[in-house]
């Protein structure tokens, strides 16, 4: 009977853990909804920041986040996937290779502020891009590249060896086998990894504070020139103001950011389902 009891206790502990997590999330969401929903109207979405909270809007921040996401996607997709393919499909299992993989995993765990300092030194100063949206996007690209590479490698590893053999046995070259058999089978996993790391880039704040994201931008950002802002930073700025009204529009901005995140996650789910229709091993 004791082992039955142990099972029941463990089951109850699992339920408690998930309930606690969901409860915390739910409370947060309710709090944000109750405070932010009131200001969430077209004027808020299309307006620009103002000293008077009633007239403040977040158009520059939304555009900044969208541009940022776009540039990050364009940069990390080809580089991350190609690096993942190289490490997983083309290199032998050597000491150097293992060292490389371990380091990439470690890079995925480096605090984002460190990337901010690095981006400041490399993109803003050395490459002289200035404190622009482009420099910020490139910094965030570096931040999520390890995650994209790891997601790609894991998706490739999950493709059964029999698929590669089948392609090779038909006279495929290595690249033909990868392009024709391995990549299509790994595509859902790779794309999900990319979209989820994009969501992380869009929610990131710390490195961008170092790369010149300013909080009072009243115009649509230009990627290569002038100041810019993004949603998390706008939220941070409003939330740190003493006035209650600013706290409330911060909550509204949080809702916008949440919606953006939700859309990205939905896209990831959609891609996964759509691309894996044929996969079922």
């Amino acid at each position, binding site marked *: 009977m004791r082992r039955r009891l142990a099972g029941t206790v463990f089951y109850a502990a699992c339920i408690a853990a998930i309930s606690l997590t969901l409860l915390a999330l739910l409370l947060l969401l309710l709090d944000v909804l109750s405070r932010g929903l009131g200001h969430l109207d077209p004027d808020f979405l299309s307006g620009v920041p103002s000293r008077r909270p009633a007239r403040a809007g977040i158009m520059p921040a939304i555009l900044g986040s969208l541009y940022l996401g776009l540039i990050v996607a364009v940069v990390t997709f080809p580089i991350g996937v190609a690096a993942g393919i190289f490490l997983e499909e083309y290199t032998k299992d050597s000491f150097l290779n293992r060292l490389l993989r371990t380091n990439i995993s470690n890079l995925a765990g480096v605090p984002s502020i460190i990337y901010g300092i690095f981006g400041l030194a490399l993109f803003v100063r050395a490459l002289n891009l200035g404190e622009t949206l482009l420099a910020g996007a490139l910094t965030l690209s570096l931040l999520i590249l390890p995650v994209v590479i790891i997601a790609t490698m894991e998706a490739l590893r999950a493709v059964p060896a029999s*698929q590669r*053999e*089948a392609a090779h046995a*038909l006279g495929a070259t290595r690249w033909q086998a990868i392009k*024709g*058999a391995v990549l*299509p089978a790994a595509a859902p996993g790779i794309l999900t990894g990319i979209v989820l790391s994009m969501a992380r880039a869009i929610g990131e704040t710390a490195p961008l504070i170092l790369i010149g994201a300013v909080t009072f931008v009243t115009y649509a950002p230009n990627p290569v020139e002038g100041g810019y802002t993004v949603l998390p930073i706008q939220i941070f700025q409003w939330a740190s103001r003493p006035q209650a009204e600013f706290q409330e529009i911060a909550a509204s901005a949080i809702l916008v950011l949440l919606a953006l995140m939700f859309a990205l996650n939905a896209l990831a789910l959609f891609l996964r389902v759509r691309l894996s229709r*044929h*996969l079922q091993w």
Partner: protein
Amino acid sequence: MSAQAIAERAPSADSKAAPTRRTIQISTAGVARGPLDLADPGDVAVEMQDVSCCYGTFRAVRDINLTFARREVTALIGPSGCGKSTLLRSINRMNDLIPGARTEGRVLFDGQDVTGREVDAVDVRRRIGMVFQKPNPFPKSIYENVAFGPRINGYRGNMDELVEECLHRAALWNEVKDKLKQSGLSLSGGQQQRLCIARTIATSPEVILMDEPCSALDPRATLQIEELMRELSEQYTIVIVTHNMQQAARASDRTVFMTMGDDRSGYVVEVGPTNEIFTMPKQRLTEDYVSGRFG
């Protein structure tokens, strides 16, 4: 009975077993010509000379000398781990894909050594197809599965016709003709394996290697594949690895019995017409194996 007498009886025993003999003539001159007694050397599709395969320091098979006759089914039988699959995979250089694998000796395909570094393994695999133990269709449509090989090899003809013809030859057309767009993985195991056969013949190979193609299939699907093998052998040279001795007896013209030594390295014990291997093997080891006393 002396070895000479057995060798002389071989052709008659063989022709009784398979009355519809095709182009291959069995020499009556005894064993002097080596394990495969072909009247015409042009009837040899693949010849292995002193072939050894190693994984790192482990010698998986050693000193293999074998000939595979054109448009015959040759079965490789033997206990698990004796290197049958390794031997099979050395013919189309699939072992090259395994890190640390090495093949010594010569594998002559149409008289040309295909083991050398200067020979493109991709080219060899185009002409020597392979069907695997577990059906492994691509997660693509049935049509795209068959079209995959021709596409990557730059086929310029009518793809629809080719796909239909290959599915016909693999005895699958009638079952799939209305659902060519469906995933190859939606088929049953036996159908999947026939799809893999259709996919293999779509690149028009001369030789088809089959690595235990029925081990994941039920008896009915197995029988279908065996019938298919017999039909295909009118056009292709087939080498099949099998654990199932009845299958070797039913479906092959010639049988190679392999086993392994104390060092776990596989070698060929005996080669002969299938009928002879199963009814009057020359070697004691073969007799023990086919009668179920060992292995």
